[in-house]
């Protein structure tokens, strides 16, 4: 009988062991349940000086849109009022402040924060210019300066005056390097006021703008991210980059040897790229007398201007911007045969090439992330890889990502923005530190 009991106990143990082996392990969950949804800030802002005469922007408005994580909300709105780092994203050519959000930025940020892959951060995007697709987020002095006196009908004590760079394209150097950060510090109190917690990035033309801003304004941002961009105008050998596109623009235009037939249609993005660049780097500004209707219908006349005018008309394109609107003309960096025109290309465009800005700037202390795909348009892959080489050659550490589309879905321009944003957010979050 004792043996029987031993055997029975053994069998019972076996049965219990199997029962334990059948314990419930629960249900898998991803991240949906834990998401604290952030909010969206849509806040167009007027930058009077910086965008004073920007083409077809009579109210000097810069489209601005932002993401605010829930944790940064004030407690009365369900948050904890915790200040957060800041990331500014610049859209590519032809896109506005909605670009990144249209590709799922807010939901992606919510997801990554919920999964703990990034720390909560505020993300601000601005609009690129939509008239010609963008001006490389530049504002360079070679393009011309103007001084102005505004509201002349006001009493003398209230006269408003200023000096502008590149009035037609706007002064993004001033805007991104000073005015916008200043506005953020004053108005967006949920952002940590510490350069180590500020980053900037972009795709395409936006990436050029991000690097340009970081290089011209050291100490404002300490992380920069870029994806396939005109980062090296003349390529690795000095004769590539944009120079390989000049013929393509001529072919796209079908000019027949006459630059006056130059067409700025938005259906010609390559053409628009060079119009925007020319208005930024090689404008042929002419005297403008602007009659503006402003407060209480009081006329305001710009009564004083000094303009930079390039006397060489070899590559001058006139009448794209009609005189009755603003009369901003521009000089292309290539002639009607598609050959680089040195006085414009070398003297005005290339000084804005990042590798030429770099020696007079510094990226010390700036975390750098650059992604590129061999399938990128406009030869941006070659320009991007060349700039990576320039940076590494100068001793800077660069985090790089070579990406391609999956089978059947090439990595053309904006198809992978969603995925690239994921990588950018993670990079900046890690750069911000604890």
């Amino acid at each position, binding site marked *: 009988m004792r043996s029987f009991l031993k055997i029975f106990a053994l069998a019972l143990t076996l*049965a219990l062991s199997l029962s334990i082996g059948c314990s419930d392990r629960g249900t898998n969950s991803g991240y949906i349940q834990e998401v604290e949804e952030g909010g969206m800030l849509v806040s167009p802002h007027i930058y009077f000086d910086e965008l004073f005469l920007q083409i077809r922007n009579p109210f000097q408005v810069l489209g601005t849109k932002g993401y605010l994580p829930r944790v940064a909300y004030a407690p009365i709105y369900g948050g904890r009022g915790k200040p957060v780092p800041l990331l500014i994203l610049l859209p590519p050519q032809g896109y506005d402040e909605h670009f990144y959000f249209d590709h799922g930025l807010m939901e992606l940020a919510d997801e990554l924060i919920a999964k703990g892959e990034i720390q909560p951060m505020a993300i601000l995007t601005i609009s690129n210019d939509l008239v010609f697709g963008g001006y490389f987020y530049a504002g360079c002095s070679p393009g011309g300066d103007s001084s102005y006196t505004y509201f002349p009908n006001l009493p003398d004590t209230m006269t408003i005056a200023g000096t502008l760079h590149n009035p037609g394209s706007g002064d993004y150097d001033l805007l991104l390097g000073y005015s916008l950060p200043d506005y953020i510090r004053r108005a967006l109190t949920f952002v940590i006021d510490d350069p180590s917690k500020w980053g900037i990035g972009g795709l395409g033309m936006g990436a050029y703008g991000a690097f340009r801003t970081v290089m011209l304004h050291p100490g404002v941002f300490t992380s920069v991210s870029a994806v396939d961009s005109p980062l090296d105008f003349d390529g690795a050998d000095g004769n590539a980059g944009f120079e390989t596109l000049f013929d393509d623009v001529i072919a796209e235009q079908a000019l027949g040897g006459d630059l006056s037939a130059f067409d700025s249609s938005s259906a010609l993005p390559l053409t628009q790229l060079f119009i925007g660049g020319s208005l930024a780097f090689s404008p042929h500004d002419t005297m403008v007398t602007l009659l503006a209707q402003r407060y209480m219908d009081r006329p305001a006349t710009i009564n004083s201007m000094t303009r930079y005018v390039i006397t060489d008309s070899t590559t001058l394109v006139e009448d794209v911007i009609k005189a009755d609107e603003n009369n901003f003309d521009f000089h292309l960096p290539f002639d009607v045969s598609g050959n680089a025109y040195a006085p414009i290309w070398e003297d005005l465009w290339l000084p804005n090439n990042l590798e030429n800005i770099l020696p007079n700037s510094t990226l010390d202390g700036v975390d750098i992330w650059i992604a590129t795909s061999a399938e990128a348009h406009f030869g941006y892959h070659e320009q991007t890889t060349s700039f990576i080489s320039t940076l590494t050659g100068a001793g800077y550490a660069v985090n790089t990502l070579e990406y391609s589309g999956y089978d059947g879905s090439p990595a053309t321009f904006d198809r992978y923005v969603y995925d690239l944003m994921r990588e950018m957010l993670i990079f900046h979050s890690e750069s911000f530190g604890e």
Partner: protein
Amino acid sequence: MSIVRHAATILVIIALFCPGIMAGGYENSGIGTQARGMGGAFRAVVDDWTAAYYNPAGYAFIYDNQLGANSAFLHLRNELIPSYRLDGIYETGVFNDQVNVNKHEIYSNPAGGFLVRLPIYGETVMGLSAFQPFDYNIAWKLYDLPLAYNDSLTLPEDQFVNNFDVVAFQLTLARELVEDKVSFGLGIQVLRADLIFNSVAFRDNPWEDDSPLNVRPFDLITEWNTNDGNGWGFGLKGGLLFNLNEKLNLGVTANLPFDITLSGSSRLEYYMPKITSLLVPGSESGEEILPGTTEYLFAAGGKIVDTADFECDLKLPFSVGAGLAYQVNDKLTVAFDAEYTFWSKYEGLDFVFTNHRGLTGAADTSDIAKEFFIAELPFGDTVLSHHAYPVEWQDAGKVMMGIRYKFNDRLTLLGGGAVDQSPAREATEITPQFVDTGTKYSINGGVLFHHGQWDFGLAGSYTDYPDQTVPDLVDSNEDGLFDSFAGVYSAATYETVLSFQYRF
């Protein structure tokens, strides 16, 4: 004794050195407490009603009538750490890089039967039984819609499901061919197959690559489909049992199920992208995307449902087996079995849809939308409305060893083990719906309690699977849908069998 040594040696050699003939797949692990307690090595033992399953010839040497039943309780404790990314990079919403477990379910696998000795042509033993020769049941939740894709909808939890049963209703007839020496048994089966098969698929967005409707993460549209059907078929099971001498038995079996056509209903649910930016009134890109348009279907974030009838051919495999049982003394019996199943015949599942219904509006009238929603996919040189889950399985073997020790008149102890090969030799054949990761090892044990004419049994087994890594997403039949599910799979199976038997 030399026969025993030779036979055992042959079986061991088969087991160790011939992986090509070492039954996995959807084969049931077995029925009966006694057989399961002995690791399944029962073809040459076959002295209870479960001989209908293991070797019908055993009925001929059972001299009392029997009535018995059992239920096996199985729990598949599998884990999956997915790495389901397009091109290894691009996220889809699958729960990557985390340990996921299959849905908790302990499913029962009942069986029962009786046998009686009848005075037909001398003496013929006849039995009726019901059991499941093929069985698999697993369910997973592995996916959420990415928030940026659609933050309003959620999928059902039963996302990846394979609930596959084939029940055999078997008439068994057995006779002694040579008195006390050789018997033959034949099982004539009516087979009933039932299948619930759910899957999540990522369908190529039909819009052009440069369309804002077709950028990441809207490039792949999430489809959840569930297919529920059944079918009837026939099967044959035959066996021979040789009493080689007073101590040694040899059993030889063959099992031939015929193909079954499953038919039933399918439900295809499409969780559409929610592209808010394209729906803003007055926005540049949203002007044309108005309710009722085809574009609206692909941007409004709704759920589109198509229901259809389906048919699916089920090609069940032929199998053969052999076993030796040696009665060492009055108390101890040792048994070795080997089984070989021709799983290469099985080609997977191909649900061919007809009689679509449920689509309305633009989903039904627009060619681009309708073709998409009725799952028209390339199939060979044609386009067919279907979903295919093809496999290229290989034949698989299984060897088993068991011991039975009659402790006393009231108690019998059982023990055993098995080595069981997976028919899915290529890692890419492993999917959440079929986690048979490789050659697996089982350890079995059990007890039988005897009380008068009653036997009560309890057996248990644990099966350990090797970890398996599926490295890539593969579209093996080039229909645009991935047939593999990348990730690291690990698995274990627990089984408990309870039984009773009445001898009369």
